[in-house]
């Protein structure tokens, strides 16, 4: 299972993660900061979650695999 966190100190509100994995990430209305809406997504979303982490312009997303 994947565990996902967004570092709010690093997030710059670009929304790249929301574009790539809209089922997993969303943005606040005021400053567009990213948050996780689905903290433990299934394996079918793994590729897009890793791509979102890789594409984040601040490297604010951490993905860890848990049993």
């Amino acid at each position, binding site marked *: 299972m994947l565990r996902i966190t967004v570092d709010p100190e690093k997030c*710059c*509100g*670009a*929304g*790249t993660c*929301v*574009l*790539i994995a*809209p089922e997993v990430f969303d*943005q*606040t*209305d*005021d*400053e*567009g*900061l990213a948050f996780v809406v689905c903290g433990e997504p299934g394996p079918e979303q793994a590729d897009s979650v890793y*791509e979102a982490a*890789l*594409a984040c*312009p*601040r*490297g604010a997303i951490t993905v860890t695999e848990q049993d």
Partner: protein
Amino acid sequence: MTKDAVSLEFPLTARTCPFDPPGRYAELRATAPVSRVALPSGQTAWLLTRHADVRAVLDDPRFSSDMSRPGFPHLYPKPVEPVLKGTFIRMDGEEHAHYRRMLTGLFSVKRIEAMRPFVEQVVEDCLDRMAAHGAPADIVRELAYPVPSRVICGLLGVPHEDHATFGGYLNTLFDGSSDQEQFAAAKAGLSTYLDALISEKEKAPEDDLISVLVEQQYKPGRLSRQELVTISWMLLAAGHETTAHMIGLGALTLMENPDQLAEATRGPAAMADAVEELLRHQTVMQLGMTRVAVADAEIGGTLIRAGEGVIALLSLANRDPDVFPDPDTVDVTRGARHHVAFGFGPHQCLGHSLARLELAVVFDRLFRRFPGIRPTVPVADIRFRYDAIVYGVAELPVEW
């Protein structure tokens, strides 16, 4: 060659293939990915060509975007002006974040997605005019320029009928050959125009982004008048040229690669992937980004000292074979979104979602409306913008 010897003169403009960056850059990436280059201004700078190094510098607080700092790499010699308040693209750290935070929510993915019907309408209007004009038509003139212009005007609440006024100023700002006086006059003209527009929004706010900034930031005193004017003209300018040339080059790339076009037009998900691949392959920001080190920093094994300039070459990072296998091939099914076409780090393009939306709608509608569309001339006869700040096609005559 000593480590600090100049490897080449930047920028290179001669391309062997108009769809690939100048070949010498790729040789440099293979042999000396962090190397000294000489600029026309007489300065030298470090040229970065690897994806990892480009991303490292653009997200490192030891590298500044402030053009007024000593050592900042300028392409051409020009007097250095202090950075005007509100010019957040030229600010760093908390100062930059202060302005950027006022805007990120207004450019969120959901807000931009809500503009889809408007973008579709703009594109359909342009295609109607192109059809009425009849073949041959110039895609740059009929589609690439008007779509981003109308869309950013709609978002900001700038009446597009005023294009005759502000369009000339924008052209001067984007024309690399404008001298300092012309540049200053264009900035002043644009500021005067937007200042008057802001006065109207103050009296009668509407549903647009400038009105929102007037209500949320200017009236409560969080933004001064000058800051609001500056932010408005930056947004207006930024929404124009880059997307326009990505439309022209992207359309040409798809027309020249029919198998890729067929794949791209299979559906919305395929088109979204195709847009990412076109952005990666045809990175129009061919000269940037530029930064100056404010502290010593080791990048890609090379020590860059405080006060030295850096050019992070986005177009080369996006062709890095260590990150994108077979990087020179257009493969719209690649599915890679960690390219740096919009930059990287806290300064990454604020309007990237809007640009992505515009590109997807334009390519979808263009090839649906004119399935047999093709250039009227061979690629060898198409005029490319080799010397421009933003690469692209100057004209793209098509028939259908």
